[in-house]
Structures are given as structure tokens and as C-alpha cells.
């Protein structure tokens, strides 16, 4: 653990840090869009797998009769 440093005006210090940061907001939008697309594709794959399972179950039940 570091030794405690002396200082004052904590919030002012933190606010100055934030003020000094430039963020590309477009990058955030792009990240969200591409992640959404990935999630949608995963959800579609899961739905398709669930549909295949349902069909297999129906088919197995049919053969059992």
C-alpha cells in the first residue's frame, strides 16, 4: 500500500482530470451498434437451435407411437 499523500481539493482534482479527457462519442455509438448486431445474431442462432430441438423432439415422439 502506498503511503498516504497529502493534498487538498479532491473533487477539483478529479474534475480537472475529467475535463482533460476527450472522448470520441462516435466510437461509443459504433461499439454499441456492432455489439447489438453480434447479440442479435447469437439470439437468432439460439432460436434456430431451439427450433431444431423442438422438431427433433416431435419426430422422436412420432416414432415412439
Amino acid at each position, binding site marked *: 500500500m502506498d503511503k*498516504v499523500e497529502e493534498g*487538498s*481539493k*479532491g*473533487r477539483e*482534482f478529479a474534475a480537472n482530470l475529467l475535463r482533460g479527457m476527450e472522448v470520441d462519442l462516435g466510437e461509443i455509438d459504433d461499439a454499441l451498434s456492432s*455489439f447489438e448486431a453480434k*447479440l442479435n445474431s447469437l439470439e437468432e442462432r*439460439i432460436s434456430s437451435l431451439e427450433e431444431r430441438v423442438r422438431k427433433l423432439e416431435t419426430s422422436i415422439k412420432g416414432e415412439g407411437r
Partner: protein
Amino acid sequence: MRGVISIHSYRGGTGKSTITANLAIALAQLGYRVATVDLDLSSPGLHVILNVNQSSLKGTLNDFIYGRCTIDGCVLDLTDHLGLANGSLMFIGSSMKPEEISQLMKRDYEESLFKRIAFEIDRKFGVDYLIFDTHPGLVEDTLLAVLSSDLSLIVMRMDRQDISGTFLLAKVLRRLNKVFYILLNMVPPEMAQMPELKEDVSNAIKAPVLGLIPFYDEVLSHRSKGAFILRHPKHVFSTTIYDIAKTISSW
């Protein structure tokens, strides 16, 4: 001390305080000496999950900040209160008195305050882990807590607002060269089954994912009536928290 951990999130309602309380207890049950501090200064609530009444706090973080008490005057040892079989858990709560919240919001404090709190707790009680439960968002108090921590966990739901906000937080923490991990919480059950989810989130946010906690009705129904992990130690939520605690303690 093995480490100072801050638990954070971009938005409120992510289950940050629930995770803080349960993770602190899990680390204690693994045999560690743990302290947790409610740094959600404008809306304290960690004490409720830890089953502590505001009126039973002999001193608060507010008292310490303004020099009205020493660190041992505001630390509450919850080890027996919670019936912990192993380790120990100490707690510093924040005041819910409106005038004290207002006072703290208006006045600044020293830059090294949270480092000093960690230093003093370690010196007096010799803890292994100190966990800060912070206020959500990109606010000054939280930034100072994160800067004073060795490790930060950002709690995130699979919600568009959380995802974009966590991306921003991750960017800020990277610029500050801080070590941090994402903790996915309240993940819809069907989504929690996706094997690639953790990797996809990690790629999207550009940060490692430490754990994934699905949404459980039982946790919601528990309504913060004490720590879930103590009431339901065998529940998957609790075992997942224990796994996260074990991972952290292995570092």
C-alpha cells in the same frame, strides 16, 4: 493489505451494493479480514444489506471526513453480528441525515482522502481487503475512489444504456492506467446461456469480464433483507459470488 477494490457502475440499479455486500462476506468466509466502506455519499444504502441500522452507527464516514471521530470511532465490526464462521468483516457507513448529505455534497475534501481511509483501516485493523461501494456514474467522488484502488469492478447489466456507459467508463479507466474488470449482473437467463457472451462483451467494451451473474427471481424477492449469500449459501448466485471471491483472492 492484499488490495483495495472499488465496485462501480455507470448507471444505478445494477446491483452494485448487493454485489459489494455479498463479495465482502464471501471474502471473509474464505478466511480473510475484510472491510467495506459505503462511498455512495449522496445515497447510502450498503448498511441495509448488511443488516445495520443507521441509529446503531456509532460514527459515520461523514464524521471521519470532518474530523469528528477517528477511524476506529466509525468502524463497526460485523463479524459476530452477521454470524461469520471465518475471517472478519468491518464496515464504515455513511450518514443518511439529509443535512449531513447536503454538507458533504457542498464541501470539498482532500485528494488523498480515500487513500487515507484505506491506510488508517489497514493500520488499525490489519485488513486483507478493503472494498469501496461507490456512487454510480462518472462523478468526482467515484473517480477519486477508483484512483485509490488497486482493482475496480464495473458492474453492468445487458442493457443498452449500461453497455454504452460502461464503454465510456472503461475508456476513462484505461486512460488512468487502472486495473479493472467487468462484472455482468442480472443477465437475462436465455442470454446467460450464450457461450460466447463474456468474450463478446469483452471485445465490445475492450475490457476483461470477471464474471457473469444471471438474473434470479430469488435475489429480487429477497429485497435486500440481509445478505443473500448468508441466507442462501447454496444458491447459484451465492456460489458465483464465491467463485469471483476465490478468483480475486488467487491474484
